[in-house]
């Protein structure tokens, strides 16, 4: 930051600029968007998990009132060209996506046909009479079967092994000689993102202009643009993607999905705008699943509890048509399994398996199983060694003296503070006081528990993810516009970037109008997600603001005939230092820059427009410690969270209110994931949880008050900001699981993963004989 303008807004809890329109019902979400003449789409979907399409008759549907068209893969085949994601790059192992089922169906919910009609009501009427004959076949639903079975989910790939990793280590002797060796199979069940707004788009192909316009609920408009341009063989600059307000995404809206492809193709064939708004049942059924994986982990420790080695065999159920790439997160789990500890040796194997279930998509911290598994194992080691879980972590955590540290998996750790957050979380939760309270409660027949979770969060900014762009314009009348390639959908970017610019230009954030999400206007960006906004977007905004500041100073020198060294920026003006009256407003400077260009010195370009792109370091790490206390009702299996504490370090914070909000949302998803949310299939591959009656999201009664502590270790980034948006979801599941396990330990109950709904809790108690 410039030394001349004080940080008035960066670091402060500035109220959001997004809020007034959202609070008054004047946000503009995709379902609010009207394109004149638009038609409405509904999908016909497979009712079975696997089968061959023996007949597909859309003739009756085509005749239904108000139905404009019914398309199947046959209609799309010749116009749908191979395409791939710019963000992930072309993955030779990934299955290219076809918009609709092509002769066979691979999961219950697989889209078979798209009906386009005058209204959604009429499209659904049409969908009901599409006649599909399916020869249902036995599906592959679980990892074991997927690996053994002759049934192949994707025949064109030829194997159900979507991905695998073999990274052995020389550890025989270590395990043989270790004082303690523990082995556990940690299970994580299938749960899903559930943004409150599902997917949706309006696609409009105008052949006369040769232009495709897509209004979409997306997290990455430029990604959608290039993906769809390739799909139709259009030059990218003939495709425009526009996002308005978007009701959450959590990864589901980062990449283009099959239904979205179908909608674009339908518009292309009809030369009419086609709209599809995903309903909740579709979103749960087919919007992209996540999290279903497990690992058998062995950990070796010495007599003092120091970790010596780990062996991890990780398997994942990635479903069918999984994304991004193959849908596997094995690489991330491998890289970060050691976490913020000194773990000298690790061997890792992974198998990602296709099944006839809905495919994976990215979901907030897709690789977070590394923390879920490792933090549970830390408590397993603690119980084996008789050490307190806090003490065990203290013995193993990376301290400042250890840094920089390269992990057994080659990750370089620096600028992190896991030991500090561990101590701060322990202090905030009153660790020793709780242990006393716990003992007293046990004596009275009540079961309280405490869980810790310590992790580092990688912010991936390598390659295509490493740069964001910002354009700053001051209009001829003096108003400021900030135009960025971001795709904020709850991350408060409109506010945080305005804070950065406001500090640099000495104006108020309210004076800045923010524009994002329109590929015709905004600079290219890799989308919003993956915790990188504070790194790349803030960097771009900061650079652009610095350039504008310099430009304003030079124009002011000309207008005021005062040297820049005697000028300062404040109050939305440039003025002589210490004399606010002796200056010029931005409006006056803009007037000079735009309206009287000939009078400008030769070395000042007319106008007030600058642009900049940030380049981020290849990776950045944040870290945090979660601590959670619970009470378990051993009669009903209900878990009540008593207190929840997060000590986090994301470097300098642009807006602590926004940081805490991101943590809270992630924690709620972890709490929900462990205690309530479960995406269930029956033995035939039929989904059983496709409404909110059965897929249970946490409400205000299930998420406790969250208490925060902040540690600040600046990043090697502009402003020292680091990202953190996924962290809440990463740290929370094991904190809750460990707390339940700690509560039930005296009963001998072993908790080895999730789900942990009341029936599972009672079952664990019963299995220990603790009736």
């Amino acid at each position, binding site marked *: 930051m410039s030394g001349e303008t004080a940080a008035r807004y960066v670091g402060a*809890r500035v*109220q*959001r600029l*997004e*809020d*007034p*329109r*959202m*609070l*008054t*019902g*004047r*946000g*503009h*979400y995709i*379902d*609010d968007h009207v394109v004149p003449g638009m038609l409405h789409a509904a999908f016909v979907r497979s009712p079975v998990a696997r089968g061959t399409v023996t007949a597909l008759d859309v003739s009756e549907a085509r005749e239904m009132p108000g139905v404009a068209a019914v398309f199947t893969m046959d209609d799309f085949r010749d116009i749908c060209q191979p395409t791939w994601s710019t963000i992930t790059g072309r993955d030779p192992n990934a299955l290219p996506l076809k918009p609709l089922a092509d002769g066979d169906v691979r999961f219950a919910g697989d889209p078979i046909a798209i009906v386009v009609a005058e209204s959604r*009501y009429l499209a659904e009427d049409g969908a009901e009479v599409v006649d599909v004959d399916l020869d249902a076949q036995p599906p592959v639903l679980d990892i074991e079967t997927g690996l053994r079975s002759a049934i192949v989910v994707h025949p064109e790939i030829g194997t159900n092994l979507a991905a695998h990793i073999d990274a052995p280590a020389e550890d025989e002797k270590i395990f043989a000689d270790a004082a303690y060796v523990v082995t556990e199979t940690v299970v994580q069940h299938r749960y899903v993102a*559930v*943004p*409150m*707004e599902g997917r949706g788009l309006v696609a409009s192909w105008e052949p006369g202009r040769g232009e495709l316009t897509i209004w979409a609920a997306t997290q990455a408009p430029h990604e959608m643009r290039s993906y769809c341009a390739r799909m139709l063989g259009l030059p990218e600059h003939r495709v425009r993607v526009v996002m308005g*307000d*978007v*009701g*959450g995404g*959590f990864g589901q809206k980062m990449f283009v999905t099959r239904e979205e492809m179908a909608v674009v193709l339908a518009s292309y064939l009809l030369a009419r705008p086609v709209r599809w*708004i995903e*309903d*909740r049942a579709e979103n749960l059924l087919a919007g992209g699943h996540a999290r279903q994986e497990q690992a058998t982990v062995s950990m070796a420790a010495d007599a003092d509890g120091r970790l010596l080695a780990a062996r991890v065999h990780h398997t994942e159920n990635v479903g069918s048509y999984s994304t991004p790439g193959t849908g596997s997160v094995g690489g991330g789990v491998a890289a970060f399994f050691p976490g913020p500890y000194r773990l000298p040796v690790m061997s890792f194997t992974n198998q990602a398996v296709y099944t006839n279930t809905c495919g994976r998509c990215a979901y907030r911290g897709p690789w977070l199983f590394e923390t879920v598994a490792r933090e549970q194992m830390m408590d397993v080691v603690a119980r084996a060694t008789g050490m307190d879980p806090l003490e065990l972590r203290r013995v193993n955590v990376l301290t400042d003296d250890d840094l920089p540290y390269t992990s057994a998996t080659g990750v370089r750790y620096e600028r992190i503070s896991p030991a500090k957050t561990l101590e701060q979380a322990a202090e905030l939760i009153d660790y020793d006081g709780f242990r006393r309270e716990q003992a007293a409660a046990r004596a009275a027949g009540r079961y309280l528990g405490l869980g810790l979770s310590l992790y580092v969060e990688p912010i991936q900014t390598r390659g295509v993810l490493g740069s964001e762009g910002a354009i700053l314009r001051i209009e001829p009348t003096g108003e400021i516009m900030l135009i960025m390639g971001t795709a904020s*959908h*709850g*991350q*408060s970017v409109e506010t945080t970037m305005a804070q950065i610019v406001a500090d640099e230009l000495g104006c108020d954030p309210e004076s800045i109008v923010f524009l994002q999400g329109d590929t015709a206007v905004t600079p290219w960006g890799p989308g919003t997600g993956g915790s990188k906004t504070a790194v790349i977007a803030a960097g771009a905004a900061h650079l652009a603001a610095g350039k504008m500041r310099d430009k304003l100073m030079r124009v002011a020198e000309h207008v005021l005939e005062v040297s820049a060294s005697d000028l300062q920026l404040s109050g939305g003006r440039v003025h002589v230092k210490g004399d606010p009256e002796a200056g010029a407003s931005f409006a006056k400077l803009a007037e000079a820059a735009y309206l009287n260009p000939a009078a400008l010195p030769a070395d000042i370009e007319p106008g007030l427009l600058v642009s900049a792109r940030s380049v981020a370091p290849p990776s950045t790490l944040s870290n945090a410690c979660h601590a959670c206390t619970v009470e378990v009702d051993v009669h009903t299996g209900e878990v009540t969270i008593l207190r929840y504490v997060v000590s986090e370090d994301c470097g300098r914070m642009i807006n602590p*209110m*926004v940081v*805490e*909000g*991101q*943590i*809270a*949302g*992630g*924690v*709620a*998803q972890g709490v929900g994931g462990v205690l309530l949310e479960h995406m269930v299939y029956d033995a035939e591959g039929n989904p059983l949880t496709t*409404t*909110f*009656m059965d897929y249970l*999201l946490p*409400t*205000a*009664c299930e*998420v406790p*008050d*969250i208490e925060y502590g902040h540690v600040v270790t600046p990043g090697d980034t502009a402003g020292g900001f680091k990202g953190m948006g996924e962290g*809440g979801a990463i740290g929370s599941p094991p904190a809750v699981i460990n707390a339940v396990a700690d509560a039930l330990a005296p009963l001998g109950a072993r908790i080895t993963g999730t789900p942990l709904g009341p029936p599972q809790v009672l079952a664990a108690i019963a299995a220990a004989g603790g009736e």
Partner: protein
Amino acid sequence: MAEHRLEATVNGREVTAMVEPRLTLADFLREKLRLTGTHLGCEHGVCGACTVLVDGAAIRSCLAFAIQMQGCSITTVEGLTPDSGELTDVQAAFRAEHGLQCGFCTPGFVVSATALLAERPDLTAAEVREGLSGNLCRCTGYQGIVRAVQSVIRSRQAASSGQQAEAGAAQAAGTTQEAEAGAARAAGVAGS
């Protein structure tokens, strides 16, 4: 199927429309009246994003058919905003406490919280959470939402006790005029 004539009041304005029976109140408000502040998060009556007031009572507009609203007075989130365009105290509190991120659930929460507090102005922390449990949020973890509702409860209580204190003091002083002026000043405070 035959369309029916519907006459209702929406946000203080009389509305007449021909509606198909199966058109939900939510879709009527959004599609026919272009009041798109009411959102659809599930369309099966669980998430609360579609909450509106019908004759003052908060209901899920996806679970009512528009035609059932004959003669009713409906208030959507847009109708909460006074002519001045200022945020209501509930809305301002949501903003101050960071009770929204993506904003999709927000109108449902604002309408529900407004109705909840009108009916029950004094709630414990647990009662606040119970009262809000019919609305789902996926972004905020409910932290700012709960704090916002609690802060409105406190502010309204402070304003009304200020009003009572002023009126009481004036009465003690024995002057009706002063009592009225005090109440008016306190009401001005409460409304700000």
